[in-house]
């Protein structure tokens, strides 16, 4: 289990520095890119977690990989994490960082799941609705999942609105069977 509390502190530290330096956009993009590349190439993760590879080597690898790609502050942060043996928390840190920067920009992320790609006009409508509910600027994060059959599932923060056919059917099954568990 990733230690969320530790991740929260690292993220907050990075965030404070970045805001002071006015580099929020750059670092945010950097982190997203790194997470993306990390996910695609599992050998990076394996190398970084490998106990037999000495830290200086890992540092060199990180430098060579990222020096040209990301801002110095991001690279420094990664090297710092490596030094503190907290690189495994990167995913959790990125998530916390994202949360902080969203808060900073008065943004709210709405995760929208539909069975078929959401048409732009409907996405707009959804955006307006959520904006009215929350009073914040809305960024839609769409996912397509045919298993929900139809309708839409919207998740904002810790709240979820299930308007999918799948959810409807499972509620119907519970009602007809009269079971509670």
């Amino acid at each position, binding site marked *: 289990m990733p230690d*969320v509390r530790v991740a929260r502190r690292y993220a907050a530290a990075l965030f404070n520095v970045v805001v002071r330096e006015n580099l929020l956009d750059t670092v945010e993009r950097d982190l997203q890119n790194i997470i993306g590349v990390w996910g695609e190439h599992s050998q990076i993760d394996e190398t970084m977690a490998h106990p037999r590879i000495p830290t200086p080597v890992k540092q060199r690898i990180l430098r060579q990989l990222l020096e040209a790609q990301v801002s110095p502050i991001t690279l420094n942060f990664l090297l710092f994490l490596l030094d503190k043996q907290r690189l495994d928390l990167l995913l959790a840190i990125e998530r916390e960082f994202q949360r902080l920067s969203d808060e900073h920009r008065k943004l709210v992320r709405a995760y929208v799941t539909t069975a078929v790609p959401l048409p732009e006009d409907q996405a707009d409508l959804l955006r307006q609705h959520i904006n009215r509910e929350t009073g914040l600027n809305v960024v839609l994060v769409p996912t397509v999942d045919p298993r929900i059959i139809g309708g839409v599932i919207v998740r904002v923060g810790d709240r979820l609105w*299930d308007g999918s056919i799948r959810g409807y059917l499972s509620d119907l099954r519970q009602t007809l069977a009269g079971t509670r568990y």
Partner: protein
Amino acid sequence: MAIRPEEVSEIIARELAGFEKQIEGVGVGSVLQVGDGIARVYGLQDVMAGELVEFETHHSGNITGMVFNLEEDNVGCIVMGSVTHIQEGDTVKRTGRIIEVPVGPALVGRVVDALGIPIDGKGPILSDEYKYVLSKAPGVVDRQPVKEPLQTGLKVIDSLIPIGRGQRELVIGDRSTGKTAIAIDTIINQRGQGVFCIYVAIGQKLSTVRQVMKTLEDAGAMEYTTIVAATASDPAPLQYIAPYSGCTMGEYFRDSGQHALCIYDDLSKHAVAYRQVSLLLRRPPGREAYPGDVFYLHSALLERAAKMSDERGAGSLTALPFIETQAGDISQYIPTNVISITDGQIFLETDLFNAGQRPAVSAGLSVSRVGSNAQTKAMKQVAGRLKLDLARFRELAAFAQFASDLDPATQRQLARGQRLVEVMKQPQYSPLTMAEQVMMIYMATGYYKGSQGDVNRPSVLEDLPLEAIREFEQGFLQFTRDRYPDIAMDITAKKALTDETADKLQAALEEFRGQFTYEAD
């Protein structure tokens, strides 16, 4: 029952027409870590302690969990089902409900799991009424003192350690000393007494549960019994919930002016299951690694047994918790806890059991704190001297082991004690009615408290060899059933032993003694 397909479709169509879904926002979180019957969940803001949550798995539908720990950055849940289908990252939904089970007459005769889901293959439980599993015990004004007896049908218990309806009586002993046998005999003896029985099996073998079920079925006792089974193969959270579920089912009868008996077999395994989930959720361990609230775990359960006041319908819920000791040690943590909560204990001893004294109740260490208020007058009349005599016998017996020749008075005392002990034996699955027990005890002691004071007659067993006593007892029981049924009927009707009936009983005893022959070895 004929079912017409078109009727079925019509009913379903009607149900569907009335089914309208309101889309409401629900609190959600995602699984951080899962295993060993517990899950840690990220998110779930505003969730309440004790609330039910639903884990949405990819392949096996929704699995229910219960919020146990609220921490700074995550929520600790116990999972009421198999955790193997839950994956990291799965969505967890709030339900806004707390845990409840179906109650009512529909459960009678059924075998259910800790959530009230039937596991006996006899179809769904048609009960509309659900009740909270973790509810509070009735308050002071809703209760009244225990006043009616709960007959176990066992001579040694009903005479020496009587149990009243609404009492909590602990049954404690080592493994295989006949604890479950007492439970089964007591359930069988409730036939026709208007007492609904709930047998809660916690951490038992499935084969044992099956065996109990079959025994009860054969005795016709399943007609008024519910079995709640959380067996050794069930996850610890279900074992933890099971006794509360059983108690809730019993409370339905208690609160509707009826009587119920709840047997928790056994609470030491319950404590172990609770210790497991507590430790996995990193609650601080205390003595014997049990969490700090293990006393409350059992007191909250057993306090729900009560005799309700007349305004509340005068129903009752009797609790018979079981505790398994290790090598007769009753000073361990859990046994001492439960001893201090209950209104007395029935202590079963391995030595007695192996010596053929069954039920292996230790008369010296067993006690009932409130049951004597509930004992019938007839039983009080004959049992008055029994406890004293047995205590004297134990003292003498210990002393007599060292002495070679004893004076005749001591020998007589010893012989008398041995005969009493012999009469206290009782085979399994043969409970006796109150009247029969009174007769048997009178037969053994020749004593009763009459209207003119104590009556002491020489017992007819005095000149009988020990080996013949069982046979004599059985023979006499049959003899009175055939020839003098009015004696038992009179005791049952008056709930007392009148001088007249006692004389009749003495005459019958002497008559049977005259015709009784035995083969000396």
